[in-house]
């Protein structure tokens, strides 16, 4: 009520002031007239009226106070004062704002990514009750492999821990988008799939087991292709030219998998289950935990299940035990995040280190400045300012800096997120979904406010103490500052070591030669047309004759996408020795030009020829690794292996290449002629040409058969770079973070020593006058700086040791506690800090005692 009245009165603005003035003037006039009526002369009457009225100015002032919002006005005054101070120290203010901005920006951007990728996968809610089953085969060094139908059945039997179990597998459809053939990713899912996610349809309903040929559209497909038609249920959509009945639409926030357009019904037949474990591993089994069951209990349950399977005294049990086959259970969030998991946590930790060291630095700077304000504070206190007013003033200053830094930081985060969504790394479909939502903005601002309170409170407390007990506490303040420097140096050291480790790994990996010439090669996938048997031959011929093309080949799959197709194989007239695990190799399906186009040498025998076609007996080429491992003391040529389509005769031996990643040793490889193994729906064109050939491939495919969609067009070098993407991005970002924290530490340590020198100028002058040598003075201050630095480095070393297990998964042929890297980081940090300390220390040693003694 009071507040509102004040506000109302105030909102009338200047009239209030005018009213009061008019009113007071009238009052005094009436008084004067009263006195004149009593017979006083005019001059006398005016004086008497003034006396009677009292102090008009004071009356007006007191009246004004009644309307005012006292607290609000005081704060407004403080804000104005703080802004003036900030503008008077633009360098300090700029440094503080930038530091906060960077810390907050990096943290907010990284947390946004963490949120989308890890904490709240794909923006879906309540996924913490969902677990993904994966397969591991120890003898093949296989981890996180997809499931077979038999695994699905196995998980279904564990009804004590799971209430719902679903299976899903990928589908690739060709969709006619207004005359243009588009490749569309789909997912075939069992009817329980949506229930596992506890999802409700955005329109229509989800299908049941009896709805054959039914599809559920993704929300984005519904919007883009059907305009969000609410009566979508019952309409039909063509995939691969086959009509599917739409039963409903997945909810808007349902984005698993991230790039899927529609879900069709998956029926897991008994025949498929009978194929057994390890065969046809295309499925992802997702299960919902039964109420009251913890993820840990379920994980343990699945582990026991796999152990029991291996221990079973049957042929199958012995087989599983021999190959080390078993199921793993992973929380859905970890399953989705995959390889992005540890890099993201690492980056977040690094960004926090930067923010904290940044805060320490700003606190140090403010502390330095505040020593110059001791007089001001003392005067204000003696004039009657309360402690709270002083603290409020100081905190307000840092909060204003924090707010400015926070806003700038959010702008940086916005920029950072838009950069990240374009990063080219495995798992980029996930990153494309990252947005900076309101909660993240709130987090960023909160972080900025918290950090400004942090760096504002210390100087405020210190100043108040200072103003009470003069010189004695100075050493205490320095203690604070030394602690900040220790923290900064420690943080910088940790980040430098990490950066070093990652850079060494990146460098080591980049030194590895894949064994083929990746330059000037463009690759593009296409979907094979259904009723066009001569398509691939025509496509190859027109690619080869296209202008600018040196050579062209067809292949499935392309190196550096997913790796060859892993399969077990047999060798004619040879039995496995007892106890030897199954033989496994990777298969690639290629046309004869493949080896020439990638410049992979054929070391023995012959290349494939055009005559190795559908009608000819199956041929194959093995790589050196396979020849060395399986035919060490004999000629592999003419031997026969069985992997795809019966026995295939080995006609040649090719050099070994790394085709799945520079870091991984490849498994033995078998090449088959592409025309002889027509099982796969997709293949890729591989073109060597001086310039990029993406458009050429697209155009040629369209001319050859317009119903064939082309997708995933990338140069070979881009594919290799993408595999290195995480390493590059991580090393790059950590290098930036490390550089910034080193800079902060440098500024911090410089500031402390410079201030100590300034405070002790007189003392130093006296000592020099009494005969101290400049070297002694220099040594003393160098020692002071290096002591804090040394402590920081020691603490950083301990921290590095503590977090090494985090980072070891991201390293390649570098140990997490790598002495060379640690020594390099140590040398770098010591040199930089020595320079930072040397400057003020040398100034101290050159102080002229004459000037110093007069110095105040």
């Amino acid at each position, binding site marked *: 009520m009071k507040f509102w*009245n004040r506000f109302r009165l105030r909102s009338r603005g200047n009239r209030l002031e005018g009213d*009061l003035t008019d*009113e*007071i003037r009238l009052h005094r006039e009436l008084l004067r007239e009263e006195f004149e009526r009593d017979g006083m002369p005019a001059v006398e009457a005016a004086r008497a009226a003034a006396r009677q*009225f009292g102090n008009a100015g004071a*009356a007006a002032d007191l009246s004004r106070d009644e309307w005012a919002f006292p607290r609000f006005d005081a704060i407004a005054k403080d804000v104005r004062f703080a802004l003036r101070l900030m503008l008077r120290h633009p360098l300090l203010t700029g440094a503080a704002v930038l530091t906060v901005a960077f810390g907050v920006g990096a943290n907010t951007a990284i947390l946004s990514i963490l949120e989308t990728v890890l904490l709240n996968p794909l923006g879906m809610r309540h996924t913490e009750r969902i677990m993904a089953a994966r397969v591991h085969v120890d003898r093949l060094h296989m981890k996180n492999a997809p499931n077979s139908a038999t695994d699905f059945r196995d998980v279904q039997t564990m009804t004590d821990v799971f209430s719902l179990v679903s299976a899903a597998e990928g589908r690739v459809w060709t969709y006619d988008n207004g005359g243009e053939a588009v490749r569309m990713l789909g997912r075939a899912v069992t009817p329980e799939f949506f229930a596992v996610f506890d999802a409700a349809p955005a329109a229509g309903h989800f299908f049941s087991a009896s709805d054959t040929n039914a599809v559920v559209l993704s929300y984005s497909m519904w919007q883009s292709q059907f305009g969000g038609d609410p009566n979508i249920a019952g309409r039909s959509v063509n995939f691969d030219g086959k009509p599917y009945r739409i039963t409903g639409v997945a909810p808007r926030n349902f984005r698993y998998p991230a790039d899927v357009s529609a879900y069709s019904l998956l029926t897991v037949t008994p025949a498929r289950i009978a194929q057994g474990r390890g065969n046809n591993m295309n499925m992802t089994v997702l299960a919902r935990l039964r109420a009251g069951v913890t993820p840990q209990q379920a994980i343990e349950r699945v582990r026991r299940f796999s152990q029991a399977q291996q221990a079973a005294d049957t042929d199958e049990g012995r087989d599983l035990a021999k190959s080390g086959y078993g199921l793993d259970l992973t929380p859905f969030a970890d399953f989705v995040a995959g390889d992005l998991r540890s890099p993201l946590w690492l980056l977040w930790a690094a960004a926090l280190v930067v923010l904290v060291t940044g805060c320490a630095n700003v606190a140090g700077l403010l502390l330095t400045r505040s020593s110059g304000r001791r007089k001001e504070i003392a005067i204000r206190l003696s004039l009657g300012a309360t402690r709270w007013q002083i603290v409020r003033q100081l905190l307000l200053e840092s909060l204003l800096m924090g707010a400015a830094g926070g806003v700038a930081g959010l702008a940086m985060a916005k920029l950072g997120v838009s950069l990240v969504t374009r990063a080219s790394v495995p798992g980029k479909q996930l990153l494309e979904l990252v947005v900076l939502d309101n909660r993240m903005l709130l987090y960023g601002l909160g972080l900025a406010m918290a950090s400004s309170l942090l760096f504002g409170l210390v100087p405020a407390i210190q100043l108040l103490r200072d103003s009470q007990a003069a010189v004695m506490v100075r050493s205490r303040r320095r203690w604070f500052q030394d602690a900040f420097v220790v923290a900064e140096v420690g943080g910088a050291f940790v980040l430098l070591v990490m950066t070093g480790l990652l850079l060494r790994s990146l460098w080591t990996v980049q030194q590895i030669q894949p064994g083929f010439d990746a330059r000037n090669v463009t690759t593009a996938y296409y979907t094979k047309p259904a009723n066009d048997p001569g398509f691939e031959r025509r496509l190859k011929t027109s690619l080869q004759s296209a202008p600018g093309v040196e050579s062209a080949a067809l292949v499935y799959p392309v190196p550096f996408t997913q790796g060859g197709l892993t399969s077990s194989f047999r060798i004619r007239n040879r039995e496995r020795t007892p106890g030897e695990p199954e033989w496994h190799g990777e298969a690639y399906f290629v046309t004869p030009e493949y080896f020439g186009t990638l410049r992979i040498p054929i070391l023995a025998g012959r290349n494939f020829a055009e005559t190795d076609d559908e009608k000819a007996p199956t041929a194959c080429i093995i790589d050196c690794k396979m020849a060395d491992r399986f035919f060490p003391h004999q000629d592999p040529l003419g031997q026969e292996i069985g992997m795809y389509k019966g026995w295939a005769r080995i006609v040649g031996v090719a050099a070994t290449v790394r085709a799945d990643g520079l870091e991984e040793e490849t498994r033995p490889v078998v090449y088959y002629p592409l025309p002889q193994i027509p099982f796969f729906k997709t293949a890729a064109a591989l073109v060597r040409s001086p310039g990029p050939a993406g458009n050429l491939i697209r155009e040629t495919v369209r001319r050859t058969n317009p119903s064939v969609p082309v997708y995933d067009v990338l140069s070979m070098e881009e594919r290799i770079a993408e595999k290195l993407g995480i390493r590059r991005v991580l090393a790059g970002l950590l290098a930036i973070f490390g550089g910034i924290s080193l800079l902060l530490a440098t500024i911090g340590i410089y500031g402390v020593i410079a201030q100590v020198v300034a405070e002790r100028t007189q003392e130093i002058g006296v000592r020099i006058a009494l005969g101290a040598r400049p070297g002694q003075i220099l040594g003393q201050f160098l020692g002071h700086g290096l002591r804090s630095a040394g402590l920081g480095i020691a603490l950083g070393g301990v921290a590095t040791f503590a977090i090494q297990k985090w980072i070891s998964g991201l390293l390649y042929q570098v140990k997490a506690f790598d002495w060379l890297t640690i020594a390099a980081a140590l040398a770098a940090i010591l040199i930089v800090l020595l320079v930072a300390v040397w400057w003020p220390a040398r100034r101290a040693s050159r102080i002229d005692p004459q000037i110093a003694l007069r110095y105040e």
Partner: protein
Amino acid sequence: MGTTNPEFLKGTLDMLILRTLSRGPNHGYGIALHIRRLSQEAFKVGEGSLYPALQRLLVNGWVKAEWGVTDTNRKARVYQITAAGRKQLDAEVRDFDMVLAAIARVMEGA
């Protein structure tokens, strides 16, 4: 300024103004005049201190003000007591009576 303790006056002045206005709307000078006459010039206080009190009453919503014309045909700001003001006056008078009665009892008992 008079010698009377201003802190004591603050509350009393509010009450006196409300009491004056309860007889009918009046302008600042009129209120001062009325209080001066009735108290027989006992309050030797500058009439200026009336204005902060009037602002306080306005802010509390106990009086409202409008520009009007005096008997002598001059423009003046006329104050009028509100319903809330009357209630406040009643409460203050009651408190005042209680205090007076208490003081009286103490003084008689002594």
